[in-house]
């Protein structure tokens, strides 16, 4: 991995400040702490201006990729987000979601290539809402922005991605998400074969990126394939292929770029453990899966429960202990105001080999 250099050729322009922020449907539900962490890091730690308009909606990308939302509709929805941005006086859009990022990029390219579709979209939006919009000057994914500021984060770091006991760098596998750079390789840092957006953060913050044979393989999200229950075997089989491939490299954690990938690489580990009894981490447990904001948050000394890490299906405590994070295990399921928010049942993926031998879970 040290020899990966192609990212230097695939560089894109990332705005330095004044972002209009758009959220992810999946993350608001499954990793809500990550989006808040992004805002806190940007505003609090980095002193940047990030504006959010509560009226912005889903980009409808999941519906689009599931053949439910037509192209004309999604173009108009996206145009409405741009209209909110224009009205607020912003020019740089930053998206929390890879699917949305892919959608924004694809639609902007479509408008560039087929200007008549842009005109039709302007007309549809105006008829429906009376709004007009400007094309954003810069579109980035949130991870691009964190990558852009990775050295500043490193300078402000409270912790490094190293094993606190041994001093060895943590071994990290990164997963980029297909729609980050497989649609437009030039729009992703490092291109699609050797993307550097997460690897760059890991390296700047003291960790070691571990390559493995199925690194480039899709997590299996597949939109319509997981939406239909009986088709989920497609999705989980692809995630399993990745787990089996990465397990021999003993990663300390997986860091993800894309909401869907984070969700599936985390939750399918639970599912596979319950369905087949297979786990892929050390000591019979799962491999923790982090968003890049959670990774940045830990480095900057955020409390893991404030980052929302209690929402993970694979427990993160073994990783926190390894990193030497100062946290209170007993407050894991206490909400913001100290109120118990409920705890999940014990799951196979979080049991050690010894627990399983004595059937502690059941």
């Amino acid at each position, binding site marked *: 991995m040290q*020899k*990966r*250099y*192609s990212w230097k050729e695939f560089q894109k322009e990332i705005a330095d400040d004044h972002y209009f922020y758009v959220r992810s449907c999946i993350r608001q539900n499954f990793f809500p702490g990550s989006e808040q962490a992004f805002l806190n890091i940007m505003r609090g730690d980095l002193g940047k201006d990030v504006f959010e308009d509560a009226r912005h909606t889903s980009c409808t990308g999941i519906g689009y990729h599931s053949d439910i939302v037509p192209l004309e509709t999604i173009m108009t929805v996206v145009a409405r987000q741009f209209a909110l941005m224009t009205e607020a006086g912003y020019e740089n859009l930053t998206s929390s979601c890879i699917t949305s990022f892919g959608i924004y990029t694809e639609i902007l390219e479509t408008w560039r290539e087929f200007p008549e579709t842009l005109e039709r979209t302007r007309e549809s939006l105006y008829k429906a809402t009376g709004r007009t919009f400007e094309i954003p000057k810069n579109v980035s994914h949130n991870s691009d922005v964190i990558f852009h500021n990775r050295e500043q984060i490193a300078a402000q770091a409270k912790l490094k991605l190293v094993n606190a006991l041994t001093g060895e760098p943590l071994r990290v596998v990164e997963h980029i998400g297909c729609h980050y750079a497989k649609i437009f390789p030039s729009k992703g840092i490092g*291109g699609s*074969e*050797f993307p550097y957006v997460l690897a760059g953060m890991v390296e700047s913050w003291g960790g070691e990126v571990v*390559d*493995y*044979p*199925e*690194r*480039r393989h899709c997590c299996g999200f597949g939109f319509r394939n997981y939406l239909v229950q009986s088709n989920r075997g497609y999705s989980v089989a692809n995630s399993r292929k990745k787990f089996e491939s990465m397990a*021999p*490299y003993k990663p300390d954690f997986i860091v993800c770029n894309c909401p869907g990938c984070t969700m599936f690489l985390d939750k399918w580990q639970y599912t596979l453990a319950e369905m087949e009894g297979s786990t892929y981490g050390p000591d019979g447990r799962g491999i923790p899966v982090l968003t890049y904001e959670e990774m940045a948050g830990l480095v900057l000394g955020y409390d893991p429960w404030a980052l929302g890490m209690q929402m993970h299906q694979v427990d993160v405590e073994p990783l926190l202990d390894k990193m030497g994070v100062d946290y209170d295990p007993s407050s894991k399921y206490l909400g913001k105001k100290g109120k118990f928010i409920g705890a999940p049942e014990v799951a196979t993926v979080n049991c050690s080999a010894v627990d399983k031998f004595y059937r502690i879970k059941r």
Partner: protein
Amino acid sequence: MKVTIIGGGVAGIQTALALKGLGHDPVIIEKEDTLGGKLRGWHRLFPVMTPARDVLEPMLKQLRDQQIEVMASTEVQAIESDGVVTSRGKVESRATVVCSGFDLFDATLKEEYGYGIYDNVITSADLEQMMNNGKIALADGTQPHRIAFLHCVGSRDEKVQQRHCSKVCCVTGVKQAIEMRRWFPHSEIYNFYMDIRMFGPGYEEMYRSAQQEHGIQFIRGRISEAAPVKGGKVQIKAEDTLVGRPLKMTVDMLVLLIGMTAGCSNSRWTECTGLSQSDSHFMRPLDMFEGNVRSELPNVFYAGTVTSPKTIGESLNEANAAAMRVAAYLETL
């Protein structure tokens, strides 16, 4: 009469020898400090494993014996009607033969194969170099057991603007596979191909002997990606298109059969003369038949891979043909 020859590879050398034989006064202008071009880096030649030096050295000896003028380490900057402009000044001549050859495809452009990133992914040119050095080994010095060759790297591939077939890589892949079998008798060798284009004399026979006598496995399908595996191995994915199923395997060494791309100086020739290039950026000869060594200008001629991928034998033939054409042209002056 004085004739400038741009490029001192096999085509340039043979053109010079032939022109000298016809009583003219050729001068070879070579940008590198040694003559021989790409052939210098090659170990053996298909289809009968002729050592490359057995072809090149007698030619160089003749060149010396006949005292043909060579300007090495000299770059041609422009072709003009009365000669060429070089990095060492103007060389006047009545005709110019462009023998500037081809470039090897840069395998790093096919990022998915990890050339330059993964230790044991090498090119066909690297393998020839290893054979010339007398040692073929993995990065850690050990012997490869499982070896895969991938055909058409930088050929028939619009993603890297190489639409053309490089012609010689199929037979090179077969030749190198047989050589690997000789170096490593107990290895497993796989060639991944889309078509096997055995156009030359003895080529098809060589292909058959690779299959039957040397036990080389041919799998029809293009490798889609190579990924690193512990211990320096490489995992490859392809479709076995003859059975319609994806296939994956781990190999110790992946050899990329890199194609021929148009020489980088071609655009310079176009700019200074108004000559034209084909879609693949090779120089376009006057026509594909009777004028295949002539250009659109009466005093500029072509020989060898400047116009398209060719074998050594074909380049030598073109060199002789170009010399005849030049001589006929000089008669008319």
